[in-house]
């Protein structure tokens, strides 16, 4: 009987433990839950609270990751940089910093940070090279040779990256001058050259129609109407030449836009080649 009573008291005591919501352990547990629930802003607050009790590299790293996840790359870099070289997370934090710099489009800084990492002979050098090489696709610096560019990527990645390399070195642009000249020779042809078919046909028909009207009116001695149609035709003709040049510019801008989007989609899909963390497993 005494044993049973003792057992009850012990169990009850365990049950009754008043939850201390603000004990460091509980703050950390809750912060981890928020982090894994992708409630990053609250997770940062809780982790920062925890840091006032115990300064841990893992927590600093998670704060940086949370900032990176919500797109606050400056604070992410600041926190990644707070890790000491002796930390086991130091090297991966350098890679995460590269990711943040990539997102901030600070490509020259990205390059120099990647070089520092290479000099350390880091385990993550290959990842750094991949990120740097992909950054060449998005800036205006001269591209390395195809061999050097493709070197860090594995077989599967190479096919896609090679295509990016080709698109960057031989962009499928349309010449603005050529578009203008084409439209000057045959109205609308420049627009058809820039794959703007409906506008091309409309330009051709309208310029043709007004020219015809001007011609017939001159022939039939209606000079006022003839000049009106001539002016309208000339306007359409000039507009069609200008429009073809603009159409080539729009076409080229779309090529650039799609290309940048494709590169970002690829690197996002590959999660910046960074191995998955086991924080939320």
């Amino acid at each position, binding site marked *: 009987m005494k044993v049973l*009573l003792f057992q*009850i008291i012990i169990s*009850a005591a365990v049950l*009754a433990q008043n*939850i201390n919501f603000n004990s460091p352990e*509980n703050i950390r*547990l809750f912060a981890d839950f928020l982090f894994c629930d992708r409630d990053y802003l*609250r997770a940062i607050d809780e982790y920062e609270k925890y840091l006032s009790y115990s300064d841990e590299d893992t927590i600093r790293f998670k704060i940086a990751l949370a900032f990176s996840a919500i797109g606050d790359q400056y604070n992410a870099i600041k926190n990644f940089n707070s890790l000491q070289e002796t930390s086991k997370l130091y090297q991966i934090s350098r890679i995460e910093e590269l990711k943040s710099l990539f997102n901030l489009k600070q490509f020259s800084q990205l390059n120099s940070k990647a070089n520092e990492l290479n000099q350390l002979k880091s385990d993550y050098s290959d990842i750094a090279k991949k990120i740097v090489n992909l950054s060449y696709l998005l800036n205006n610096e001269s591209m390395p040779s195809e061999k050097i560019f493709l070197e860090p990527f594995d077989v599967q990645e190479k096919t896609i990256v090679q295509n990016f390399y080709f698109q960057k070195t031989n962009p499928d642009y349309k010449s603005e001058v050529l578009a203008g000249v084409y439209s000057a020779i045959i109205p609308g042809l420049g627009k058809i050259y820039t794959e703007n078919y409906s506008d091309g046909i409309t330009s051709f028909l309208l310029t043709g129609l007004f020219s015809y009207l001007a011609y017939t009116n001159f022939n039939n001695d209606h000079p006022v109407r003839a000049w009106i149609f001539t002016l309208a035709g000339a306007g359409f003709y000039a507009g069609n030449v200008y429009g073809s040049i603009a159409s080539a510019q729009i076409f080229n801008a779309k090529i650039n836009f799609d290309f940048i989007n494709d590169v970002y989609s690829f690197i996002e899909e590959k999660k910046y080649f960074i191995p998955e963390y086991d924080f939320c497993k």
Partner: protein
Amino acid sequence: MTFVSKKIISISILLVCSGLAQNSLDDQYNYAKSLFDQEKYFDAITESKRLLFFDEQKLYGFEANMLIGLSYKAGAKYNEALKYFVLSEVNSKNDEQLFNSVILSARTNILRRTTQQSEKILNSLLANPKYFNRTKEIKYWLGWNYMFSNKWEKASEIFSEENLDSSLAAICRSVVNESYNENFAKYSSYIIPGFGQFYTGEYLNGLISLGWNVLLGYLTINSFVEDRIFDGIITGNFLWLRFYIGNTKNAEKFAKEKNLTIINNALERLQYDFNGSKP
């Protein structure tokens, strides 16, 4: 006797201890609630989430989820609010709590302008005999749903039923009465160019429309009469037809713009002058 007293002591210890554990959860809930009352919604959500995280027996499953949902709703984060109202619905312990969660889901859907969804929710509540005594409340929100889905006539009817809300019914009726018929504005301009503009009170535009159409109509017909067929086709096609079609579209656009102004004014009155419950 000794056995009985030991039993009593054990039960008392158990009760006191479990009561203590619950007290800390209770304190946490009250803390979250006080933050909510102070309109510190971000913190209220954090503390409610903390409560949910440590409340392993889900004693506060309904209350905490409800508080989070209400905080998100107050911060106009309707998608997140809906998620937590559904969770509070799942954790509800009685019909009253279930009803409150579902009504809040419907109200959030109204604010989110997913009015079809809220109509479905409210109609399912209306069809549930358990909530027969809450019919008035359900219909009240159904009326709001109609207003937000631009069905002012239906809203007016529902608010007028059993004197549900006479002030809301009056607002809805005024919108119905003041609104212009967009189709009438458009098609009357097909018959007499400029008529739709006159109907919507845009007299100058109506006169200009009428003038252009008369002039270009005359030029077109005159060309045909004088056997200038090509001139007639060009004037008719490129000028008269363009002005004629433009006139009907213009009349329709005016009616739509005026209706939008009327609706916006009504919504402004609802926001600032109406003191009853709002979604």
